[in-house]
């Protein structure tokens, strides 16, 4: 019989080695999958991991990596705070959508006024939208002890419904011939989030992601709140004795992650997406959960992980068009990454013991 036994001190090396190992294992298993599909596995892996960085069109695709990684990092960094404290915000997708809807609503409400204040106010509105959406599970948890995983997840579907209402109703472009979708922000300079340097993919959302990473790093390393977060996650009882108020921590962590997800939403809607549309939600909020764990819940790790994840998306698109790989194979490939990470994690924290049935060794 197989039995898992917790290792007394998990290896420091392996806690950072597992993500690398997971990526390597994903390449091998993914390569086998691609080979079974009748494609050249080496070419496929090269198309996914090498071409976007150093291939013929890398000058365009590198920027796109930032576009894709920006919102992932922004959301994941926020989520990691809660995850460290044992507060599970699974509904970042909903907070991301609400941030976009709030921010876009503010921008569109004053259309076509030109003022430098519009964009900053939109950003604040976006952060507020995400924060409000995260406060619902936070308050329900602190008041009625509901499960924040369920509540935040269910609110994603509510947010999606509000998004379709916005696209077909209250934010619909009045000059759009009745088609769904809001006005385009690229035609409204005061509310547009353009590339700061043309062709680099660097927009304000990417800048915000970098700032958030630094902010969270400092918070975790140098601030009392960071200490409380870590303590609450590792030893909840000890944290309570040390005077950490669990309710305050729930409100803080959910609020911060909600606001950051909301920020990602408003930067995305005013920049790369360009408008509120029915299909605006693209799963960033869910993918960010993978990114947070791939990055070891560490801000700097998350930055790297978001770039790796972006690579699988952008490279995956290339592999899909150039090699005719089915979309599902690319998604399976991304899924493998999380699978191998969790598997390798388990083995670095636990050791497997073989025992005979009925004969406990202890």
């Amino acid at each position, binding site marked *: 019989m197989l039995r898992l036994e917790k290792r007394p001190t998990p290896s420091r090396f392996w806690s950072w080695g597992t993500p690398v190992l997971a990526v390597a294992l994903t390449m091998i298993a993914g390569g086998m999958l691609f080979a079974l599909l009748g494609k050249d596995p080496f070419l496929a892996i090269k198309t996914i991991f090498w071409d976007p960085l150093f291939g013929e*069109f890398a*000058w*365009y695709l590198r920027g796109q990596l930032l576009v894709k990684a920006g919102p992932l990092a922004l959301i994941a960094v926020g989520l990691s705070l809660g995850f460290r404290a044992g507060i599970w915000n699974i509904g970042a997708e909903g907070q991301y959508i609400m941030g976009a809807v709030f921010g876009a609503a503010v921008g569109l409400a004053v259309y076509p006024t030109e003022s430098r204040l519009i964009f900053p106010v939109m950003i604040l509105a976006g952060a507020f939208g995400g924060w409000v959406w995260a406060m619902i599970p936070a308050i329900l948890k602190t008041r009625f002890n509901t499960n924040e995983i369920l509540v935040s997840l269910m609110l994603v579907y509510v947010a999606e419904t509000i998004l379709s209402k916005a696209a077909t109703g209250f934010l619909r472009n009045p000059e759009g011939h009745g088609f*769904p979708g809001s006005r385009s922000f*690229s035609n409204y300079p005061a509310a547009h989030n353009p590339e700061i340097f043309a062709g680099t993919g660097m927009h304000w959302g990417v800048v915000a992601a970098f700032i958030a990473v630094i902010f969270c790093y400092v918070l975790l390393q140098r601030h009392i709140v960071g200490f409380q977060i870590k303590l609450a996650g590792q030893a909840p009882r000890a944290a309570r004795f040390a005077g950490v108020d669990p309710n305050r921590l729930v409100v803080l962590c959910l609020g911060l992650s909600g606001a950051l997800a909301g920020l990602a939403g408003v930067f995305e809607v005013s920049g790369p*997406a360009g408008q509120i*549309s029915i*299909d605006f939600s693209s799963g960033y909020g869910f993918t960010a959960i993978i990114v947070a764990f791939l990055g070891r819940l560490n801000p700097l790790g998350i930055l790297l992980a978001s770039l790796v994840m972006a690579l699988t998306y*952008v490279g995956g698109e290339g592999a899909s*068009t150039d090699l005719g790989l089915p979309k599902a194979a690319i998604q399976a490939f991304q899924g493998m990454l999380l699978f191998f990470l969790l598997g390798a994690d388990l083995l670095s924290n636990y050791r497997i013991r073989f025992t005979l049935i009925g004969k406990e060794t202890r």
Partner: protein
Amino acid sequence: MKRRTLLATAALALGMTVGGGAFAAGMDHVKACFVYVGPIGDGGYTYQHNQGRLDLEKALGDKVETAYQESVPEGADAERVLTQMALGGCNIIFTTSFGYMDATNAVAKKFPDVKFEHATGFKRESPNVSTYNARFYEGRVVQGTIAGMMTKSNKIGYIGSYPIPEVLRGLNAYYLAAKKVNPDVELSVIWAYTWFDPAKEADAAKAMIEQGVDVIAQHTDSTAPLAEAAKTPGVIGFGQASDMAAYKPSPRVTSTIDNWGPYYIKRVQALLDGTYEQTDSWEGIASGEVEIGEITDALPPEVKAAAEAARDAIADGSRHAFTGPINKQDGTAWLADGQTPPDGDLLGMNFYVEGIKGDIPQ
């Protein structure tokens, strides 16, 4: 940073010349690329576009090379996929869903030598963007005729995707045709807010059947509603976009088939010949772009005859799906006796016709 921008611009220009070539003089070889909104195995809308691509390969042999990408979200990602395709040397790119409209036009501006063909949209912002569509609503007349004659409960249903003109046209045409043969008929509508989501589509069908609806038409892409109808004897439905022949002879009693092959062949051939021009194409049953699938013997002979008569009358032009007098839902006049609408009215249709209950979601 300036140098990088310069480099990027230079490379972009290079990409365009590589991707382009001399058009007016014709070409020896064309790379045609396709962007699909769903998986090619959806058995419906995307499947038919992919069949069109395969027809193109078959017809033009080694003069054409094709590539495609499936399940591309209708948002920020579409723009990157299109850019990657244009950079990768595609000469003509077919974007096969409404939601790619802005992305298609944005990328087309950056690649003036690549031809873009956008399905079901209306924006042609630069000379290299053409639009094409099929008069699917003509097929709804056949379905509506069958629905009106076959329903025992006088309740017929329509699973809509999004309340956009494309879908409202089909819905109104279906209802008008049903009412013509059965003045007591009532239409219930469910908006699924998706093009392809078998679970949601099945739920919609289930809800309708529970309300007593016994004929279900769908404007979504999967076969799930038919699978649901098959569970209840006496409930019938129609193949949408593809023949969905697996559900013959009942519940699938006939189908509307999108036949894109001839259009794709025509356009790529024009590119090869050097006769390519910007167009806005909208063909229907008469030209074969919209096909009516086999009308099965599960229908009584008189119903089958009426359905065939409706099909033939539309093909020879003696019947139009919208022939006055028709009022809008609120009672205001739309078409006078004997009048048929201009295409502009059809393209921007944003209302229910008189007799349909409920509101279009706003």
